[in-house]
């Protein structure tokens, strides 16, 4: 009888602990997911204003401008259909270049500027971040469907 009680107690403790742990993990998971949006989606207001998200596409040619402090950069991310202005304070990655793919993580400010906390590097000259590639693809598809009915 006593050992049965102990066993029940043990099982109860384990179940409780697992429940608590699962709650912890899932809660942390949900509150820290970062969603990806293309410039078109952001321009259409699909991106959340209140939480951080990722945006990807190409760095628009001629859009990069630096402030006199040398570390604050302004540029625009485009998916060829829509363009979103971005500002980032920090050193840009080695492979950041106008006309090349880029992914940035951050939030929209009230002025419609995306304030990046992180700008992600590619690891290879010929490599396009998958998020950026998909943003371009979607924009192209969207344009084609717009053209098609004519």
């Amino acid at each position, binding site marked *: 009888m006593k050992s049965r009680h102990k066993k029940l*107690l*043990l099982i109860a403790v384990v179940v409780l602990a697992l429940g608590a*742990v699962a709650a912890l993990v899932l809660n942390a*998971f949900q509150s820290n*997911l*970062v969603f*990806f949006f293309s410039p078109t989606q952001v321009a259409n207001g699909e991106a959340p204003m209140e939480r951080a998200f990722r945006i990807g596409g190409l760095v628009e040619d001629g859009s990069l401008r630096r402030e006199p402090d040398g570390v604050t950069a302004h540029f625009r991310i485009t998916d060829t259909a829509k363009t979103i202005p971005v500002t980032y304070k920090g*050193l840009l990655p080695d492979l950041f270049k106008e006309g090349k793919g880029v992914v940035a993580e951050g939030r929209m400010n009230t002025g419609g500027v995306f304030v990046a906390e992180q700008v992600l590097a590619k690891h290879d*000259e010929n490599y396009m971040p998958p998020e950026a590639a998909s943003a371009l693809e979607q924009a192209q598809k969207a344009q084609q469907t717009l053209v098609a009915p004519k």
Partner: protein
Amino acid sequence: MIPELGHFSLILALLLALVQGVLPLAGAARNNPAWMAVARPAARAQFLFVAIAFAALAYSFLIGDFSVVNVTRNSHSRLPEIYRFTATWGSHEGSMLLWTFILALWTVSVTLFSRHLPDDMVARVVGVMGLVSFGFLLFMLATSNPFLRMPMAMDGSDLNPLLQDPGMVVHPPILYMGYVGFSVAFAFAIAALLSGKLDASWARWSRPWTTAAWAFLTIGIMMGSWWAYYELGWGGWWFWDPVENASLMPWLVGTALIHSLAVTEKRGSFKAWTVFLAIGAFSLSLLGTFLVRSGVLSSVHSFATDPTRGLFILIFLASVIGSSLFLFAMRASKVGLGGRFALVSRESFLMVNNILLLTATGAVLLGTLYPLFLDALGLGKISVGPPYFNSVFVPLVTPLIFLAGIGPLARWKQVNVPELAHRLKWGFGASVVVALLLPLAQGDWQPMVALGCLLSLWLAVTAAIGVRARLRSGAGWSANFYGMHLAHLGVAVMVIGVTMVSNYQTERNMRMAVGETVTVKEYTFRFDGVTDVTGPNYTGSRGTLEVSENGKPFTTLHPEKRIYVASGMPFTESDIDYGFTRDLYVALGERLDDGAWSVRLFHKPFVVWIWIGAVLMALGGFMAITDRRYRISRKKEGAKA
């Protein structure tokens, strides 16, 4: 000629792997000694041919044979010799060959150090490893032949600059020693399931192999982390990048496994669970290889994506995991239960250890795979970043480390709780007091720092209590016992490093004109401009920063910005002044107007403790392997046979 020789050797190795995989297993099932005896020679012959293939590829890289596709894509005539050699495993094909080579190395080690094992056990272990090797060789020959030829190219397209680093000489082989080493634990587990003999001696055979693999993996991960720290130029030591997670998952399960094996060996309990963990650790190693090498993840480790490769690995993965779990389900119920234990006992502490480690693995798995699944199903792109992993890991690791202090002092079977509490109360009190005071020394009291210090001190104090008790009892040297405490001490050291650098690091990103100074803590950095620099296969700018400590000249740092000639890739080479209590880290950003540069500076307190801690953990593991127990049993059983 040489590449063809390598290719041919791989084909022979494939055939030998098939023989090594089928005959001994069939022999063990039918109790046919002649077939079982094939295991050792087949494994050694397979090793020979894989080694020839590996040497052939290394030779092609060293002489720069640009008629081999693999060499052309990953090497260059002006690449320094050492990197031409490491480029051998810098590509997908080459890394698969390295994987297979290391698997063959482990298999040969098993054939050499298994004289004390029963013949059917050896036959089964070597057979299972032969089947794994067969899968990898088939994969290589079918989808990723490293010796593929093409019309002679003028020159190669160069190795990725990130990989042109001394760290890359050793990181991949050591990491693979760990990954692949779990195949031995896996093979032992499958052999035990097949034979139905799952007893304490099985655990004793399996333990040193598992600990060795775990120690190699620890060093391998530590090197990867250190490499990322100095080479990526961002100053981080862990990014929760999927590729890092892929190596962390087998490590977490491997850590659970070496603890669970201890229970199985000493008390005969947790048997089925131990087998399950052995299958899990190896499966996660395979999953890691798949994630990293198939191009599913975008990172420095992934290469050109080829869907047939991904599909092959996925099928291989599914058949290995599926068949071993099926076998496990069929046989596990026959394994039987071991010794009973009370609610509070060393067994129960180790059980909680395993639950926490597996939960952590599950959390990492979720965070790593969920975005991939969503993407594969076309449900949108998401990413899971460091905030998730940090918020999950802290609450899981805190009780884990706290119990790691108590566990080794607890008795098997049943703990006398008041007695244990009595032994620990002073240590606990002292740890709490010191942990509350220590952050004040940094002039900035933070609760997380106090927690980190508490965990670290607690581990150190309990280890001291354990060692003192052992010395007083007059018990002699035990490599196992001291190795364990050394590894736990390594955790304590690492916790200090992580705590300090996470809470007290200083980062400055700024524009620096020539002659301009900036002060971080007691260090003043003066930027003295850049000079041109030309390396063997790159050109660039080399900055000079004079560092003074409290006004006195201290050191000079030379960060570089390079452009690699063949690929045109720009690259930041940071410079670091390493120190026991802090690192000074400098990286160049971009050239601005009139000689000014954007510069990144870090003051990183205690960051080397992270890697020192990992090295201590691995040393503890290697020390435990030398335990006399593993050798005595060998002699005894040798005498019996």
